[in-house]
């Protein structure tokens, strides 16, 4: 008997007979626990706000993103212009909200690439093991040897600029880490007694993979996916900040911040407020990911 088992017995709390328990009750208990974490709720609300304001920006602003107004150029933040205005008198808050869909789209593309390719690599590698595993993991090692941003830059060089190219580049950069985590989870679950019990009960490998290994590996992988959404947002913003994003006048967050850079000394808000907007989003995603991780542990 191992120490882990002994400890588990020490902390187990079986439900009293009169309570029914079950999946719904477990879900409710989990949600209950989350609802009691105010910071987590704020983080979720902020992410929801960013998503909603990206697709219905008119709910949150009366201005248009391209409405120039020389009379109100370079105004500091005020209740009328939350983030101030740029040198053409355009409302910065509005421009940030209208820039959201581009960045969100890029993030979703990047994340889809990372999740699909990473999951596929990780599952195939962890599940089949042996030579397949060695080959795939050596490939992942090679990908990891090229620092992520540089790998992304090479892809951008080859594909040219634009939101999609940047998204693809960032997505590919995330794949190796994702593949490793998935593989580690699959390997861990694969050797557990309940998988063996299912096998002994006559279940095919396909059934074991779909019903046991995937559902039980999914937790940490999903947590990582949320975390990687934050990573992708930073990377996409960085690439568009460096000038590889969408062509003007369309403005991703990174582009807005880069544009404001030239007026830092006179109009600091042009760079810093959109930057803060992005940073808060990433921070929220990190916090959500961390809370979920603690919950699933």
């Amino acid at each position: 008997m191992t120490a882990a088992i002994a400890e588990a017995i020490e902390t187990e709390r079986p439900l009293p007979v009169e309570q029914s328990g079950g999946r719904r009750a477990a879900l409710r208990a989990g949600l209950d626990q989350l609802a009691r974490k105010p910071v987590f709720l704020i983080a979720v609300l902020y992410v929801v706000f960013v998503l909603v304001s990206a697709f219905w920006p008119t709910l949150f602003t009366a201005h248009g993103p391209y409405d120039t107004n020389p009379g109100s150029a370079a105004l500091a933040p005020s209740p009328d212009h939350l983030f101030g205005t740029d040198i053409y008198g355009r409302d910065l808050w509005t421009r940030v909200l209208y820039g959201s869909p581009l960045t969100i789209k890029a993030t979703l593309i990047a994340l889809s690439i990372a999740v699909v390719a990473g999951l596929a690599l990780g599952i195939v590698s962890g599940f089949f093991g042996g030579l397949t595993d060695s080959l795939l993991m050596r490939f992942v090692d090679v990908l990891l040897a090229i620092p992520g941003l540089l790998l992304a830059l090479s892809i951008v060089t080859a594909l040219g600029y634009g939101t999609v190219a940047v998204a693809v580049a960032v997505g590919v950069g995330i794949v190796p880490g994702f593949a490793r985590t998935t593989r580690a989870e699959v390997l861990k679950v694969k050797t557990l007694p309940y998988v063996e019990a299912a096998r002994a009960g006559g279940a095919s490998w396909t059934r074991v993979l779909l019903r046991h290994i995937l559902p039980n590996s999914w937790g940490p992988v999903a947590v990582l996916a949320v975390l990687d959404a934050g990573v992708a947002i930073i990377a996409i913003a960085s690439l568009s900040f460096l000038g590889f994003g969408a062509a003007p006048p369309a403005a991703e967050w990174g582009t807005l911040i880069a544009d404001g850079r030239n007026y830092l000394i006179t109009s600091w808000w042009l760079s810093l407020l959109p930057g803060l907007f992005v940073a808060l989003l990433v921070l929220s995603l990190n916090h959500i990911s961390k809370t979920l991780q603690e919950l699933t542990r």
Partner: protein
Amino acid sequence: MTRYVLGRIAQAVIVLWAAYTLTFAILFLLPSDPMELQLAAAGVQPDSLSAEQVAAIKHQFGLDQSIWAQYWHHLSGVVRGDFGTSLTQQVPVSDLLSQRIGQTLLLSVSAAVVSLVAGSALAYLATFARWNPLRVLLTRLPALGASFPQFFVALFAIQFFSFQLGWFPATGTQGFASLIMPVLTISVLTSSVLAQVLIKSFDETLSQAYITTARAKGLSRSAVHLRHALRNAALPALTILGVIVGLTVTSSIVTETVFTRDGVGKLAQEAVLAQDVPVVLAVVTVAATIFVLVNLVVDLLYPLLDPRISHTRGRPSGRPVAVVEGATL
């Protein structure tokens, strides 16, 4: 022992070669017409050229050869330290690199050192602070540091320390003062990454049974931490040293661009903007070399520091990538 060392070196060389090949494949196989791309990079309109001129240029850049011949040409050049000729600046890439790499190495190494010190100190304080609110605050801090995009940190630093306080120059490569803000900008990210890994490692170590044994001997708190927890907690963190150094190198791209420093990072940014393929390939190769070298050193040192790992078997390959993942790229 010798066998282990040679094996690790061979492995590192193979990984490096594969990384180079992969980057070459991305850069030379993905674009629809390398000729057009490279001409555009050189600032020439393809339409304005006669067939002979096109052929001549193709020959100049080696594009009339098969992809294998080009690959072989480039690879054999790299082995000799020749990275080809920059398309935009018409000078050997190795010259560009050697002019600028000093700046970047200075920046990266300083940032790596600062992050090692700051990250370890933060992790140590966050784990061993006695006052609970302080401990909670310090534990949350790295997540904050890893959430701010580097360009934001850099711009904030310029606005605050240069424009408001006037302490440091906002841009430039001259002197020690100009180095401080770039180093701090990079360190915010890398020390956060390191601290996150270390805090987790400390946490796990302190819950081990041998810590209870040590405390039961009647050792003081600090003796338990220094003699028993520190080494065991630091060992797994050692494996992400390569990631940390790699991160300081890639961070130089954004940092040097914002602070207008003439280093390899800014060279990379300009090269990508101009689609100057040989320069991009060279920068990626150099960065991958640094990453692989640091990992090789860690691999070779690890068995000396951890008695459980013998030189014959090597260390387990379970690097804590997942934790690092949150801030890389």
